[in-house]
């Protein structure tokens, strides 16, 4: 059985999941939806608030609450994603919801090993400047080599592309797909 791991964030649920579903054949395939509670903002809060004189205990208490809120928001995204995916998949397709806590790129790779994913899909929207114009590269000119429009992948996406143990499907906000 093939397993497809889809990293879910707010943007992915809204814009990309239907494209993942439409582009792949889903016979004998399991869909694993993954949300990662990003610990970087929590860590920043811990350092900033915990560093204030006399506030360490209170900061720790509030940090636990924030972590729970992040996990809750993620569970809602996973539920939304499952509700979006279930009616479009062949009946009997298994959908698994996974939630991990850590640095998103590390957790996506760890989860892809854990579920033995055959494909990892993620949105390439966040973390880079707006995509290049759609009308293709500029016409070749004499003189210096032509400059083709370049996509700047976020560190998260770059890390996943560099380290994934399987194929990676990147979904761009303007509709093109890299795999």
């Amino acid at each position, binding site marked *: 059985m093939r397993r497809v791991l889809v990293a879910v*964030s*707010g*943007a992915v*649920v*809204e814009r990309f999941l239907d494209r993942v579903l439409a582009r792949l054949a889903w016979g004998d395939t399991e869909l694993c939806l993954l949300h990662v509670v*990003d610990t*970087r*903002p929590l*860590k*920043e*809060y811990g*350092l*900033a*608030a915990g*560093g*204030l*004189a*006399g*506030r*360490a*205990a*209170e*900061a720790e208490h*509030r940090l636990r*609450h*924030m972590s729970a*809120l*992040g996990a809750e*928001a993620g569970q809602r*995204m996973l539920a939304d994603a499952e509700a979006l995916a279930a009616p479009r998949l062949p009946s009997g397709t298994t959908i698994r919801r996974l939630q991990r806590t850590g*640095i998103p790129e*590390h957790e996506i790779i760890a989860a892809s090993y854990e579920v033995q994913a055959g494909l990892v899909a993620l949105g390439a*929207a*966040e*973390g*880079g*400047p*707006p995509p290049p114009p759609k009308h293709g590269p500029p016409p070749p000119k004499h003189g210096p080599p032509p400059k083709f429009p370049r996509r*700047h992948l*976020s*560190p998260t996406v*770059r*890390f996943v592309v560099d*380290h994934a143990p399987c194929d990676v499907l990147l979904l761009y*906000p303007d509709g093109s797909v890299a795999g």
Partner: protein
Amino acid sequence: MEHPVRALLGLAVFLAAMALVIGRPRGLNEAWPAVGGAGGLAALGLLTPADLLAVARETGGVLLFLLGMMVVSAALELAGVFAWAASYAARASGRSRRRLLVNVFVLGAAVTAALSLDVTVIIVTPLVYATVTALGVDPLPYLYACTFVANTGSLVFPMSNLTNLLVTDRLGLPFWRFTLAMALPNAAAVAMNVAVFAWIFRGHLAGSLPAAPPEAAPARTPFFRGAAAVLALALLGLFAAGLAGRPLWPVALAAAAATAGVAAATGGASLPALARGISWSLFPFVWGMGAIVRGIEHAGLTAGFARIVLSGHASPAARLVTAGGIAAAGANVFNNIPMTLLMLGILPLAPRGGVMALAAATLIGVNIGPALTTAGSLATILWLAAVRRRGVEVPALEYLRIGAVTVPLVLAAALAALVLEGGLR
């Protein structure tokens, strides 16, 4: 100069206390090493009981002010005033991620200016986190906006930062003279912070929010209205007291009593709930650090430091930049409170007429500098090394660049504004 052996022992006590304050082994509250260090210096004979009492008198007004404002802030939180403000920031964003970031900056700058950076970091940041995660947005830029503006926007009023209170109180700087001197550097610092973040996080800020913020504002209870009214009156009272050259702590204590009265009358919160907002350990910490700094002054250890900061520069502008830079570096190596107290020991030695500008430069350094230690701190570097040892590659620059890029630029903008102001006068 004290006996060299005693001075060296004093230095050892100071360094040990600072190491414990910074390292906090096993979650040790920083008040213990502060009070312990003061005790150690007293045992060495570098502090007399009269010194300890004098420090209590000097810091008493500031600490009473903090006590009152902590109660007011706790009441505002329990009444839902901050939650309402965070929700308003989201609703006023028009689903634009960029405008939401600017709104978070405005909210953080306003709360920091009026109530202190502690309130922005401790109370407002978790509310912003809750608001943006509920919208399905990556909270990273918004959370950094809160923790950074708490530092970069804490220059303007004496009450915006404990460091400002300590300096204005000790040097007897008038409230409005301080605020007028700091308004431009504060505005420059926040504007530079917004600009740098808009660039660093440009990828996160393109496009609209995936979900619309809820249209309905949180309910405004009688406690909400009462607490907001007390805040408005308290701010007016503080500004009036500042104008009249009166101490601020009676206004803060009156505001605390008024919020407690409103909470009891409306049934909005119990007194124990309000008291939970008070960080009691801050009081012995500030007193202990004040005593330690006085002790090392007695040991003659600050004289050399004063020479570095105050002399050797022909131009006043160079002296301001040196003081700001040293203060910022020291606030990262030590904690900003001891660094402020250390600088306070040498500021009165500045040439006549230069104390105000030098105090302003010092505060720009100690207030903005600590933003570096949240993102680019020793702790972060150690964490990066630890995950590398476990075989995980971390794009280190991604995590370090935020503080490393932002803090020098914001510091430069604020100091440039201060120097420019000096030139205009």
